[in-house]
């Protein structure tokens, strides 16, 4: 569930030089009742029949903890689509992990919530598509907003951390104040505003999702003000779209340095979007131990360290800060996963990103033109107003 975030926040300073993974991203399933137009799931979704069993996941959590992993992020798809979700929370917590559930809140009811908290759930990240019902339902392709408001009430009954995750884009970036106001009515101690990052379904829909330069500038002002006003009560975090940045983000804290993602089938990936890179093969946790994968998997080693870098990264002073940016973005935009991330202002292919931005910033009216590129937009349902953009909605795997 939820679009890709690079994770800038997980900053346990490690003194030792050997780095072990700190977070395990457990993509429990690709099934999801929503159809978000920016979903980070691969275009080819894995079906239920290929999903790992409860026992396999439990073993993965044990192995992760002994590798030094601190936190398990339960995500998907919608992790609550797993009928064994309470057992999985208990297994991860008793392995010693901090358990974080990233959910749309849709398949939740009061007793399920109580069971999850009793099983040791530490933190719920409830994703919102906006502060207003109509737009939220459009973006998620589902009537989901009212249920989320109900979940906010239920969570107040429990001692569990709550973050409200808002995914930000062209259509809702002007509503940040309303989103903050919504969070203030809840028990949230944290709000995360993350601009969509352009992989997966978001890449297909990127020209309708990218905010304009003015929208972005205004949003940064709003966030600064709200951060000050809410200090000590709610932590407000903001991830800006890297298309507008001068330098790329240190995606995932560097390839194979901090995070390990396990896909529903058990494939171990260095990053959410690694499947877009041609030629990478992934080991499966059913065949190999986690430590062996972390240390020896060719996919994890491929972009670890600096040896793979090309110019300008190879000799750039910032290479230990941003690791040359995102490999998946390089693959998508430059057609070469070892290239400098094209969002970097020093990248030879930055003009490609500028061209996308120019199209967005010059587009008349509020709706950017349809999708360029290899994907074909679905026609909107017949009863929709004609001004609505043609979204490419993700389907749901069997």
């Amino acid at each position, binding site marked *: 569930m939820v679009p890709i975030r690079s*994770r800038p*926040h*997980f*900053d*346990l*300073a490690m003194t*030792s030089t050997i780095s072990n993974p*700190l977070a395990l991203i457990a993509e429990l399933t690709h099934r999801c009742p929503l159809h978000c137009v920016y979903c980070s799931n691969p275009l080819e979704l894995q079906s239920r029949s290929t999903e790992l069993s409860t026992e396999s996941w439990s073993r993965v959590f044990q192995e992760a903890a002994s590798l*030094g992993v*601190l*936190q398990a992020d339960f995500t998907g798809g919608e992790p609550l689509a797993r009928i064994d979700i309470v057992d999985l929370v208990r297994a991860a917590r008793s392995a*010693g992990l*901090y358990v*974080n559930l990233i959910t749309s809140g849709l398949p939740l009811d009061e007793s399920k919530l109580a069971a999850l908290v009793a099983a040791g759930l*530490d*933190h719920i990240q409830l994703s919102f598509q906006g502060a207003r019902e109509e737009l939220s339902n459009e973006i998620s392709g589902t009537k989901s907003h009212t249920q989320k408001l109900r979940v906010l009430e239920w969570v107040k009954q*429990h*001692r*569990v*951390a*709550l*973050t409200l995750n808002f995914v930000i884009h062209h259509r809702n970036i002007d509503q940040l104040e309303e989103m903050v106001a919504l969070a203030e009515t809840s*028990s949230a*101690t*944290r709000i*995360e505003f993350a601009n969509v990052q352009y992989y997966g379904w978001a890449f297909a829909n990127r020209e309708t999702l990218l905010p304009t330069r003015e929208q972005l500038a205004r949003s940064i002002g709003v966030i600064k003000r709200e951060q000050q006003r809410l*200090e*000590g*009560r*709610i*932590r407000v975090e903001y991830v800006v779209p890297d298309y507008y940045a001068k330098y790329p983000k240190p995606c995932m804290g560097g390839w194979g340095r901090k995070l390990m993602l396990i896909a529903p089938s058990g494939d171990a990936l260095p990053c959410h979007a690694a499947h877009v890179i041609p030629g990478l093969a992934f080991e499966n946790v059913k065949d190999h131990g986690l430590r062996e994968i972390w240390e020896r998997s060719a996919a994890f080693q491929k972009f670890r360290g600096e040896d793979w870098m090309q110019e300008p990264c190879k000799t750039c002073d910032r290479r230990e800060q941003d690791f040359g940016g995102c490999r998946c973005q390089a693959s998508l935009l430059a057609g070469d996963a070892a290239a400098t991330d094209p969002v970097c202002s020093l990248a030879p292919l930055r003009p490609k990103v500028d061209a996308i931005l120019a199209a967005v910033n010059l587009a008349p009216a509020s709706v950017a033109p349809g999708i360029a590129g290899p994907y074909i937009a679905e026609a909107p349902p017949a009863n929709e107003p004609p001004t609505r953009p043609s979204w490419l909605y993700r389907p749901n795997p069997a």
Partner: protein
Amino acid sequence: MTARELSSRPRLAPGCRLSENNQQRILQMPERALRLNGPSLEIVQRCDGKHTVQQIVSELQQIYSKAQAQKVEEDILGYLALLQKERALDFEV
């Protein structure tokens, strides 16, 4: 309520707890973790909703009796303010 009020009782906020990793005590919070050394661990262990800020200060002044009492108090208040900014504490009256 802030750390400056000596009679308040700090308590770790929901989703914030002490744990251990590689023989190192850490404070886990949503999307963050802090390594704790001697004094910071002593402080966090007392953020239990029972100790007042004043009691934490006195107890640590005893443990670190070689340090200047005033300095110990300032450091504790500073550290509690930092944890509050991280949203790791609730203060009970």
